[in-house]
């Protein structure tokens, strides 16, 4: 944070030699001073070595500290050693990547010369690279890896639930798989839009050459592989039995695998805070001239409100995890009632973060879908201010609803009507999004491309997810639904059916921009159809399963529910194949047989399409002046969004012919 406060243009570097987009960096040839051989230089191999050394060091420190305490040495597990190992391992990892070079150099008062280099070629995707476009791609790949891993874990869960009493895994492994799936998905979903699309597109959409804090941006990505490895390493330590919610005192009581949960979620929390911090600051300060708040694309609005939530809510999670870590290591008693703590404390802190988190997962989906709708409707977005009000309203309200997760916990029973009210109030701004979506579709010229299909799927899924939420907000109805598969189906409808559909739609929409290659449309269509059908066939029955009396996270259930569960499991496997179709499409169209995409395949007015695909290092030849809003479709005398298209570049030519055809 403080590390990066004055990062911009370097003193000693002549302006002409600065690489556009990342001021302060020298081209590789002009780097001064001592240089390590490249094998020892910053990069993944060194990072892995440093991470291992860091882990061992932390472990050693932990054992050293605890050596005098028989309580610990006799217990067979020193949680302090494990957590310190993970922390120092993470520090070693980012140090090995080269993240720490700049902040350490800065302590000497020299601040720019040893900045990591911008590199060209595929190697830059495996390094600590400060270009926001590289970070966006890194995030995209990273989040897809997270998603597929956690998805496979989901299939493992469904395999176990094929039979009510015969076990594939047994309760121990099953509970580990459940925890891993939930935590990994939650960690990933928080960044799945803001990471790839936020980092890649926000500067392009606001007419900036770079992010405000590129080092923090790159760091926020490089923490995610560390969190991934730490979280998976939990399996080796026996897993954690608490699910992603980590309820104390179960999490205090749990074995060593729980330490991995604390460390991984903590590392990811820092990554989330940094990513959101960078985006908020960028949007506020780096907008091109003429990019007023009214002309700011809805996507940027959505990502910015999300980022505000990320910056403000995640510190509370971090604090809670830290307290849990202390309870597990130095035996504080935050969550132990007999020693002055309370099991309610974790529930309060966790959900105070957890509910904004839920909207961190919903808002970017709204943002992507509303951004794509005008393009494929060839109409201006309907009531843009209402859309923005909806997003801001959802964000603000999300801080005041957390106790609806605790309606039957016995906490503050007198406050339940209040939390019921605030929870239901959230339907109003959510309804705004539907109003805007339907208003935009009204009398539109809808082109049902693959991204548009995903947008339509989003509306349907999110509708069911939102409506089922109303049942959960009503205390008497919630009494049956709480803690069951009904809840689970509800949030999978909003997250998987909402956010992931939007994410996939966004990938189909923006991958041509990010890579210059287009996805296969036919395969994309089948990908959507399969995903839509099997998603609904997986999760719709789960509402019934929950209401019929099956609690969440069980490995055994009533025999009468076997038919439904088997139906769900089989659908889940088919859903897995639908996602496999996506992976095949991705690998095929991006790597094996790339097809060059047109410069502006969707004929969008958006600023991000007014530069080449993929964009050059500095994004634009010059900073654009914004002349009009992004959604002025159907307005005969509309100015182009910026002054970039008047020039005779291929983009401009394409855009010009488009608009001639339109007008």
């Amino acid at each position, binding site marked *: 944070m*403080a*590390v990066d*406060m*004055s*990062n*911009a*243009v370097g003193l000693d570097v002549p*302006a002409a030699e600065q690489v556009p987009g990342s001021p302060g960096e020298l081209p590789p040839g002009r780097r001064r001073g001592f240089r390590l051989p490249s094998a020892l230089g910053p990069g993944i191999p060194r990072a892995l070595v440093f991470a291992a050394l860091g882990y061992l060091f932390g472990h050693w420190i932990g054992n050293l500290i605890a050596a005098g305490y028989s309580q610990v040495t006799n217990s067979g597990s020193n949680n302090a050693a494990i957590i310190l190992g993970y922390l120092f391992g993470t520090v070693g990892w980012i140090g090995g990547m080269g993240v720490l070079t700049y*902040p350490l150099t*800065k*302590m*000497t*008062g*020299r*601040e720019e010369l040893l900045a990591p280099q911008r590199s060209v070629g595929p190697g830059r995707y495996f390094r600590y690279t400060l270009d926001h476009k590289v970070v966006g791609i890194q995030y995209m790949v990273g989040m897809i890896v997270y998603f597929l891993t956690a998805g496979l874990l989901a299939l493992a869960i469904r395999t176990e639930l094929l039979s009510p009493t015969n076990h594939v895994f047994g309760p121990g492994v099953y509970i580990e798989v459940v925890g891993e799936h939930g935590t990994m998905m939650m960690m990933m979903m928080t960044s799945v839009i803001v990471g790839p699309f936020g980092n890649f597109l926000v500067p392009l959409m606001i007419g900036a050459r770079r992010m*405000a*804090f590129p080092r923090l941006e790159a760091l926020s990505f490089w923490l995610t592989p560390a969190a991934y490895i730490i979280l998976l390493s939990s399996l080796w330590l026996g897993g954690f039995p608490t699910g992603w919610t980590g309820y104390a005192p179960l999490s205090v009581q749990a074995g060593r695998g729980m330490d991995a949960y604390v460390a991984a979620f903590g590392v990811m929390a820092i990554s989330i*805070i940094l990513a959101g*911090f960078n985006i908020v600051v*960028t949007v*506020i*300060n*780096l907008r091109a*001239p003429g990019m007023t708040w009214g002309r700011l694309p809805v996507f940027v609005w959505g990502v910015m409100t999300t980022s505000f939530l990320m*910056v*403000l*809510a*995640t*510190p*509370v999670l*971090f*604090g*809670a995890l830290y*307290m849990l870590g*202390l309870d597990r290591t130095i*035996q*504080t*008693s*935050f969550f*132990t*009632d*007999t*020693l*002055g*703590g*309370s099991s*309610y*404390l974790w529930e*309060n802190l966790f959900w*105070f973060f957890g509910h904004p988190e839920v909207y961190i997962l919903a808002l970017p989906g709204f943002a992507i879908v509303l951004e794509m709708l005008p393009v494929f409707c060839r109409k201006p977005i309907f009531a843009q201010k209402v859309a923005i009000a909806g997003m801001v309203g959802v964000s603000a309200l999300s801080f005041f609803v957390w106790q609806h997760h605790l309606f039957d916990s016995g906490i503050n029973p007198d406050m339940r009507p209040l939390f019921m009210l605030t929870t239901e109030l959230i339907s109003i701004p959510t309804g705004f999004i539907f109003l805007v979506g339907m208003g935009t579709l009204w009398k539109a010229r809808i082109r049902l491309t693959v991204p548009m299909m995903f947008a339509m799927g989003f509306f349907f899924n999110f509708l069911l997810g939102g409506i089922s939420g109303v049942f959960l907000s009503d205390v008497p109805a919630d009494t049956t639904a709480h803690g069951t598969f009904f809840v689970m189906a509800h949030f999978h409808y909003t997250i998987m059916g909402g956010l992931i559909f939007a994410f996939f739609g966004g990938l189909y929409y923006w991958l041509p921009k990010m890579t210059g290659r287009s996805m296969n449309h036919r395969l994309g269509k089948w990908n959507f159809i399969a995903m839509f059908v099997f998603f609904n066939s997986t999760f719709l029955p789960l509402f019934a399963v929950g209401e019929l009396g099956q609690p969440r996270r069980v490995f055994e259930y009533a025999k009468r529910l076997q038919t439904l569960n088997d139906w769900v499991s089989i659908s889940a496997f088919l859903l897995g194949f639908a996602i496999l179709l996506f992976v095949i499409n991705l690998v095929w169209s991006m790597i094996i047989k790339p097809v060059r995409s047109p410069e502006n395949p969707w004929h969008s007015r958006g600023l991000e399409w007014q530069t080449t695909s993929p964009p050059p290092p500095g994004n634009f030849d*010059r*900073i654009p*002046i914004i*002349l009009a809003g992004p959604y002025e479709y159907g307005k005969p005398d509309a*100015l*182009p969004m910026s*002054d970039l298209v*008047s020039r005779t570049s291929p983009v401009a030519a394409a855009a*010009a012919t488009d*608009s001639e055809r339109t007008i």
Partner: protein
Amino acid sequence: MTDVAESALPPIPADAEEGLALSAAIGSIWTGSRLLIGACSFLYAAFAFTFFYLRSLNSYGRWHPKAQHPSLLIGTAATVALVAAALLHYYGLSRLRHGLNLDWRVAGIASLGLGLLSAGLQIYQLTRLNFFPGSSGYASVFVGWVPVHVVLLLGALYWLETLVARSLRVRNAWHGQGDLGGSVTPEATRLRASLDAFNYFFVFLSLVGVAFWFLFYVID
């Protein structure tokens, strides 16, 4: 189409981009520091919430047995040192605005020292507690809060150190142009913006220190 674009504003000349970049950088520093304060406030709020929540529940009467108390002397000294550091830096900065560069440099270095003293005192205090971390709700909150505050304080001191180091390093280069307080180069403007931002954050930290001093030693 073309005439539309031509009738619009002329494109931004390349040399104006530097000005844009500078104002964006200064704005980013301003926004960033305020946002940092916001994020830290939520982290501290988690502890304040914990304090009041456990205090009001008082499970099994073990919120705070009276015998358990961290040293009032050390705690007060640490808080006073922190407040003094922040005030000193605040004062030094106002002197810098009047062009007195040396004053800020001295104040900055002294403030760094006081800050380190405060952090050191707090760590020392942790080693001299008359209770175990899990003895009570109060003990947990205290033992949990101090390292958080110390780490954030050390982060702020790192920031201050980079500023001081930078200002010392550029002393000769900028000497003719009014030095840190008066130079109008983009670099100096940005450094001053960073100073301002740091100042805000440091004052925030010291206020938090005072607030939690009240919680731990006055309210109990």
